[in-house]
């Protein structure tokens, strides 16, 4: 068996497992955990376009989640527009905001960029908390918006069971992973990582670093906003402290960093490691040991940064390649 064949076979196996899981996992609680896992894997993969490839540390992606969630929800509640359409509108709105944030901030370095993105996201959250009506649109201030679960069905992006949500977010995740894979092998991907590691050298070679970063930011904010709509339709209740809270931004960054930012597998791996820890801790220890999962997050983050600064994907990728080597060389020897 050749190496490429084996690789695609293992990828196929993962795909089959992912699509088959709801047939085995029947409990709504565990399906809920799985949906959130994929949601965060999706969010982190979108974040990774900027935070990983472009080599900066954005800590305000909750703003885009919020924009996506609010846009589609307001359009659906007030005008009866399908959330699928609202999703696209929200994405476009997020691109505008993302570019507006990116234009001035990409000139800054490291810490300043992180602070500026936090300030932007928090500023947007504070504004939404203070606005009851934005022109004709009812935002409802701090009380948020509730989506009455009346018309379930595909066109309304609303289902009584968890399974449809599971498949939707799974398809979204696969799509964004494919996009990331494509970008990482494109000119843009190389420009981005060059600009992230050595901006001066990249600029000297004629790479328009700022433009590449802006393109990455636009894509990242669009994709993140799509997840915001999914979030709203999944929980059917959004308010500024949930979809726009700083905790969301930080959790995304944590998942990326522990999994390994700048890699394709990293965000998914990080979500697989961190999300169940967070949910299971809350289910089993939530009453007695509040905040336990956040302690685990923090300790894990510190340890990973000290011992595996490129994230946990690095040792696992090595292991995977060693496994591939062994599987492909042994039959050759037998011949």
């Amino acid at each position, binding site marked *: 068996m050749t190496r490429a064949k084996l690789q695609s076979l293992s990828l196929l196996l993962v795909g089959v497992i992912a699509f088959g899981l709801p047939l085995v996992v029947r409990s709504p609680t565990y399906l809920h955990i799985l949906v959130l896992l994929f949601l965060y894997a999706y969010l982190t993969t979108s974040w990774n376009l900027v935070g990983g490839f472009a080599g900066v540390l954005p800590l305000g992606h909750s703003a885009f989640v919020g924009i996506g969630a609010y846009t589609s929800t307001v359009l659906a509640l007030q005008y009866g527009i399908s959330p699928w359409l609202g999703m696209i509108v929200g994405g476009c709105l997020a691109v505008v905001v993302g570019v507006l944030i990116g234009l001035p901030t990409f000139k800054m370095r490291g810490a*300043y960029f992180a602070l500026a993105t*936090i300030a*932007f996201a928090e500023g947007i959250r504070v504004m939404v908390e203070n606005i009851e009506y934005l022109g004709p649109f009812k935002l409802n201030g701090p009380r948020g918006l509730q989506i009455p679960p009346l018309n379930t069905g595909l066109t309304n992006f609303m289902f009584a069971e968890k399974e449809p949500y599971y498949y939707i977010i799974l398809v979204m995740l696969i799509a964004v992973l494919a996009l990331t894979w494509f970008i990482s092998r494109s000119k843009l991907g190389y420009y981005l990582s060059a600009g992230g590691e050595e901006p001066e050298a990249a600029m000297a070679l004629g790479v328009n670093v700022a433009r590449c970063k802006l393109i990455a930011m636009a894509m990242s904010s669009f994709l993140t906003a799509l997840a915001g709509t999914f979030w709203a339709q999944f929980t059917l209740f959004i308010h500024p402290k949930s979809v726009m809270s700083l905790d969301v931004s930080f959790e995304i960054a944590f998942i990326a960093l522990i999994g390994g930012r700048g890699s394709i597998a990293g965000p998914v791996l990080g979500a697989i490691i961190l999300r169940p820890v967070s949910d299971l801790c809350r289910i089993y220890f939530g009453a007695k040991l509040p905040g336990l999962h956040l302690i685990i997050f*923090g*300790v894990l983050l510190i340890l990973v940064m000290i011992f595996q600064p490129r994230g946990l994907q690095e040792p696992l990728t090595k292991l995977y390649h060693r496994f591939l080597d062994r599987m492909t060389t042994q039959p050759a020897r037998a011949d």
Partner: protein
Amino acid sequence: MLYVLEDAINGILIGSIYGLTAMGLTVIFGVLKVINFAHGSLLMVGMYAAYWAVALTGIHPYLSLIVVAPVMYCFGYYLQDIIIKPIFKAEKDVREPITVIIVTTGVWYVLDNLSLLIFGPQYRTLQDNPLRGKMLEFGGMMLSVPKLWGFVTALATAAAIYWFFQKTRLGRAIRATSLDREAASLMGINQYRIYNVAFGIGTAIAGIAGVTLVPFYNVFPSVGVLFDIKGFIIVVLGGLGSIGGAILGGIIVGVIESVGPQFMAATWTEAIVYALFLVVLFVKPSGLFGVKYDW
């Protein structure tokens, strides 16, 4: 008009305390070139230390400084020595290591939630301390006495730190390291020890800020988050690395927060502070009083 003046003066008082909470951040940034995301948590630890020192012994809140400041200094010194130093060594040639920022975020999460586990989520206040709720009447205006104490402490701390950096041998070594760490190392300064000392000083200042807050503010595990973001805003307004700038930045934020509600809904003042922060960040990232860095 008198109301506005009264609010402005109270804003200056609370603002100087904000400045004190952010001063440690600016000291640490000035030397390590790292934004310490755990600074609010260090403040929280300082507040708990002050709270327990006063609650268990019943001394005057400000007497607890004798215990809190040295304890916090040691805490910061070893926190940097054990957790942050290994990463600095690994990223020796990176001028502004993002990894260190991330590790301080991890420290923030661990400290906040450890204190949630240990002390529980309840709000604690020092009920019967001699400063609580005291007011001073001054020309028809009511001024809060504990905030006045905080104001004096903030100015005294700023002066002391300034004197330490300018006049002492260790202070000069710290400044040399902050200007050029390679050159300082060549002069025989152990840069990692300087980092430890700077982090210790920053943490001790957070402890002092904790002492000034405890007489009139609630203590709870996530109290640091309130001051964390505010602290970032203040140090960028004042100029990262500038000690006087931290106090002035704090006063700006304090005055906006206390005068603003006279003219608009109180929650909008927060948005104004963010807007001001972003304007300064874009127009003059070195801050209003800051030293110019090549960002």
